[in-house]
């Protein structure tokens, strides 16, 4: 076991100061923001007493260090109070519990598409180095990174939803379907629903209609994300593969009479994969950030869209909670990438 418990614990402890800094930045940003939350809650025409009362109840009259300390304690428990605009009345925790899975689901499918396309493309490019195939793959990859999601997304909607009407324009599922929310991941929920019905009433393709609708809604957004991650993954796969196939152990394997394809897959691929895993991890973090754009383009109500709306109407509790949730997720993904890295390549110092 290459990853020791000590290593994991050490890395987790090192996260504490980073998260402390992250929370401090969130606190500062919100306190530098113009606009008084009390006025936003009470409305512009509220009386002075009413506003003063809200200020007191929110603790806005306390000295700044008291507010900071309270914010840090609340953040550590992930308590941010209730939304006062976007999802008025719900606690930020409840909102995130519903919306976070939506964002994660999209990112996972997008990343799967990116890996499925990017790894073969990268290997092909490396094996056929400096041929037309290689050049086309590389230009394709660079174009994939250069095309913004908020342009490729709408173009795909135009072609597949508006002109050919083969896929839906936006949303997560057709409105005709009502499926109980268990995990809030639409493909999982619809599948659970279909399986439940099948167990009760026997198999019928109708049970899977909702699942089909959910999948059709996911094709374009996941595809757009996939194109982008494919570009990064194939680039890394190519350069890493090129480096690995020049190593002595590959020559040794070939010299002892092993076939080119077996050598490539058995010795080359596994070792070349190490840096690719890092890119996939970093990519996943970037995808979370990109969620604000994908969700806006495709009308998906995850935490990306939530953050944009909350910032627009100065719904501070939601902004705080969402930004912190994003930062924590992002940091954990990076930590996980580091651990995978040292697991795959035990030579890397822990």
């Amino acid at each position: 076991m290459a990853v020791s418990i000590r290593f994991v614990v050490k890395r987790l402890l090192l996260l504490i100061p980073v998260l402390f800094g992250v929370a401090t930045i969130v606190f500062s940003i919100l306190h530098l923001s113009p606009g008084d939350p009390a006025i936003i809650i009470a409305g512009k025409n509220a009386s002075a007493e009413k506003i003063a009362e809200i200020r007191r109840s929110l603790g806005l009259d306390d000295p700044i260090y008291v507010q900071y300390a309270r914010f840090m304690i609340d953040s550590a428990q992930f308590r941010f109070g209730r939304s006062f605009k976007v999802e008025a009345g719900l606690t930020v925790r409840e909102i995130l519990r519903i919306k976070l899975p939506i964002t994660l689901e999209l990112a996972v499918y997008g990343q799967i598409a990116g890996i499925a396309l990017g790894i073969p493309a990268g290997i092909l490019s490396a094996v056929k180095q400096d041929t037309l195939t290689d050049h086309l793959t590389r230009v394709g990859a660079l174009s994939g990174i250069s095309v913004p999601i908020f342009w490729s997304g709408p173009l795909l909607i135009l072609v597949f939803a508006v002109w050919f009407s083969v896929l839906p324009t936006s949303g997560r599922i057709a409105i005709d379907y009502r499926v109980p929310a268990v995990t809030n991941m639409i493909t999982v929920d619809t599948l659970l629903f279909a399986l439940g019905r099948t167990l009760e009433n026997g198999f019928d393709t109708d049970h899977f209609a909702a699942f089909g609708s959910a999948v059709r809604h996911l094709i374009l957004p996941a595809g757009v994300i996939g194109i982008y991650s494919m570009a990064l993954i194939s680039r890394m796969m190519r350069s890493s593969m090129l480096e690995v196939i020049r190593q002595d152990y590959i020559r040794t394997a070939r010299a002892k009479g092993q076939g080119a394809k077996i050598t490539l897959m058995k010795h080359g691929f596994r070792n070349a994969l190490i840096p690719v895993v890092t890119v996939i991890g970093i990519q996943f973090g970037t995808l979370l950030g990109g969620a604000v754009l994908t969700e806006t383009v495709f009308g998906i109500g995850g935490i990306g869209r939530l953050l944009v709306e909350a910032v627009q109407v100065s719904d501070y509790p939601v902004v705080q909670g969402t930004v912190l949730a994003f930062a924590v997720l992002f940091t954990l993904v990076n930590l996980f990438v580091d651990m995978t890295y040292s697991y795959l390549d035990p030579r890397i110092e822990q």
Partner: protein
Amino acid sequence: MSTETASRTESRGILDRLRASPFLSDLLSNRLALVGIVLIGLMVVVALYARLFLDLEALLRTQLGENPTLAAPSAEFPFGTDRQARDILPRVLYGAWLAMLYGTVTVGLSTVLGIGLGTLAAYYGDVTDNVIMRTMDVLLAFPSLLLALAIVSIFPDELGLWRAVIALTLVYIPRFARVIRGAALAVLEDEFVDATIALGAKDTRVLLRHLFPNTLAPITVQSTLNFGLAIIDIAALSFLGFGATAGTPSWGLMLSNGVRFGLLTGQWWWSLFPGLFLAITVLGFNLLGDGMRDALDPRMREAID
């Protein structure tokens, strides 16, 4: 006569030195990088043309009544018109100027500040290094666009695209600081630096004469690659409603309006052209940056030999 000979020898000297530089010759023999240079060059020409010959006031004004509204591309309006009956072509061309201007300021500022912080951290080490780099770590703990989004909200709307410039500069500084600190640490290990210090050189002399020139290459690559990203991110913030003020012919805002009001009703030209120009510009910087990185990587150079 003699001065002419002298200047010719000198200029040949520079050319020879350029030719002898493995970085430049590798870069110029990389066809994709050349395509990148051509694309960037074209956009710079478009940007300068728009700045010099197009009247911004006229581009902002609504043309209702004078032009047809939402006209499809035609000989008269090659890129069509928008809901305000404005000709989209000159607006897209002017967008090139805005993208180049704001992109340059963003990348320039974050490069300069990143160089400062990165070199200080590497050179002084210890506490300075820790304070600077741990702060950078915290900033890097946010997905970049999200942090930019949160920072943008601090500034008043009137600042328009400058809000995006400030926010993205803050977001990009850590990347530059990291790259530069790494490069500077590698240079500091070299014996010639010890020799210079032993000879009694001052800190500023070591930093400016020895450290800075030797970290120039990685800085250039990072800036070029980041240029494409900056242009996309500025457009992204406008697309989300946190950048250009209403009416500004910025690619992000035109795309946003085109998508929101023209996509489902079939006015594809409204969003197609701004996005196309955006993508071409970014592709140019990515091609060039990629070529630079390959040319700098000694392992790649071995492969070419």
